C-alpha cells in the first residue's frame, strides 16, 4: 500500500512537521488565552473606549480570513528585529510572527468564550456578593470566575483542537509544519493522495489524544467541585 510505503520512507518529514505543529499550537493557545482574557475584560468593562476597542477587535478578527491576518501581521510587523536562531529547525523570525497572528486570532474567539462563560453565571450570584459588601472585583474573583471557569475550560479545549488544525496555514510563510513537509514529500513522490491521507491521520490522532486528555481533565474538575 502506498500510504505505508511512503510513510516508512518519509516518516522523518512527517514527524518533524508534526513536532512543529504541536509546538506552535501549544504556544498559540497559551498566548491566545492570555490575550483573550484581556480582551474579555475590556469587553465586560464599563469604560466605553475599552469596550469599543474589544468589540471592534473581535468583529475584525472574526470577519476576515485567517490567512489574510497572517500576511498582514507578518508584513506589518517586519520592522521588529526578531531574535535570530532556530527552534526545532524553524527560523524564529518567521515562526514568531506566525504565532502572533494565530494568537491574535485565537484571542478573539477565546474572549467571546470567556465573556459568555462569565455572563452565563446567574446574575443573582453577583447581586448576593455585592449585597455582602464585596466590590466588583472581589465578586468577580471569589464568586463569579470560579463558577465561570467550569463553562469556559471545555470551550477553550475546543479552541485548542481548532488551533491544531488551523496552524496548517503557517506553511504559506515557509514554516516546516506538518502541511509544509507534506508538500515536500509530494514533490519527491509525485503521489499526493497517500501523503494527504497520512497528514489527515496524524491531525486526527493528535486531536483524538488531545480530546481524551481534555476529557480526563474535565472529569477531574467535576469531581473536585461537587
Amino acid at each position, binding site marked *: 500500500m502506498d500510504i505505508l510505503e511512503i510513510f516508512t520512507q518519509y516518516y522523518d518529514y512527517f514527524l518533524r512537521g508534526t513536532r512543529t505543529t504541536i509546538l506552535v499550537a501549544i504556544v498559540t493557545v497559551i498566548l491566545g488565552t492570555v490575550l483573550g482574557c484581556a480582551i474579555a475584560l475590556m469587553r465586560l468593562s464599563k469604560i466605553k473606549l475599552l469596550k469599543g476597542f474589544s468589540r471592534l477587535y473581535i468583529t475584525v478578527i472574526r470577519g476576515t480570513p485567517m490567512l489574510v491576518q497572517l500576511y498582514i501581521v507578518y508584513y506589518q510587523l517586519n520592522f521588529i528585529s526578531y531574535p535570530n536562531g532556530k527552534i526545532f529547525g524553524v527560523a524564529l523570525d518567521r515562526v514568531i510572527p506566525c504565532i502572533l497572528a494565530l494568537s491574535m486570532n485565537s484571542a478573539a474567539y477565546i474572549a467571546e468564550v470567556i465573556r459568555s462563560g462569565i455572563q452565563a453565571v446567574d446574575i*443573582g*450570584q453577583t*447581586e448576593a456578593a*455585592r*449585597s*455582602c*459588601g464585596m466590590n466588583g472585583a*472581589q465578586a468577580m474573583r471569589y*464568586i463569579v470566575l*470560579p463558577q465561570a471557569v467550569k463553562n469556559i475550560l471545555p470551550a477553550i479545549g475546543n479552541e485548542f483542537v481548532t488551533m491544531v488544525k488551523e496552524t496548517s496555514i503557517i506553511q504559506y510563510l515557509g514554516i516546516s509544519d506538518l502541511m509544509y513537509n507534506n508538500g515536500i514529500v509530494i514533490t519527491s513522490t509525485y503521489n499526493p493522495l497517500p501523503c494527504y491521507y497520512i497528514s489527515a491521520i496524524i491531525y486526527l490522532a493528535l486531536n483524538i489524544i488531545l480530546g481524551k486528555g481534555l476529557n480526563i481533565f474535565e472529569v477531574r474538575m467535576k469531581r473536585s467541585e461537587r
Partner: protein
Amino acid sequence: MENSTEKNMEKNTEKNAILFEIEGLCKNFGDVKVLKNIDETIYKGDVMVVIGPSGSGKSTFIRCLNLLETPTAGTIVFEGKNITEKGYNLNFHRQKVGMVFQQFNLFNNLSVMENVTISLEKVKKIAPKDAREKAVTLLKRVGLAEKADAYPSQLSGGQKQRIAIARALAMEPDVMLFDEPTSALDPEMVGEVLQVIKNLAEEGITMVVVTHEMGFARKVASRVVFMDDGKILEEGTPEDIFEHPVHERTRDFLAKVIHVI
C-alpha cells in the same frame, strides 16, 4: 419569654431613631415608571412588611434600599447619610444592610461555611479562625450547624434560605431586607424559614420584608405597607391594614390573597 419582653423594651427605647428617610423616590426602567414618588420613614426596630400585587414595585423598592437598583430620582438618607449622593461608598453601605433573596443566591462554588465566612474575611478582613467561629454561632442560630461542610446543591430550599439568612447576619447589619424569602419554597419548608425570621424580629432586628404570607405579616409586623402601581397606597399597624383597610384597592387585594373557606 421574659427575655423577649426585655428585648422588646430595648426595641421601644430605640424606636424613635430613624434608619431610612426616603423622599421622592422614583425608579424608571426605560420609559416604564416603576416607583412613583415614594416617601417613607423606617425606624430602628421596625418590622416593616411590604405587601401588594405582583408588579407593583415591591422588589424594586427594597432593592433601592441597598442600591442594587439606582434610584432615578429622590433621596435616601441612611443613618443620617445621603446614600443616593454621587460617589457615596456603596460597598460600605451594603455592609450595614443585609439582603435575603427569593432565589436564595447562595454562592454555588463555596461550602456553607465559606458562604458565611467569605465576606467576613474578604470585606471585613477578619482572621479566618475568628470568621469560622462566628459562622458556627450563626449556623447554630439558624439550626444548621451540622451542614457547615455541605455545598448549596446538597441542601433543601428551606435550608438554603436559612443559610442565606446566616450569611447576611454575619456582617452584623443594622437592617435586614427580605424579598419574598419563602416564595420559592415548597409549602412544607415555609414554616422553618418564617420561624427564623420571626426569631430575628423578636430579637429586635430591624427588617423590611416583602411577602405574600399574610399570617406572618399579621403576627410579626410592626407596620404593614401596601404598595400598588409604584406607590405606597396605605400603611399602618397590621390591625389597621387587615381589619380596617381604607382603600378599595387594598380591600380587593386582601380579598384575593386571604382565602377564607
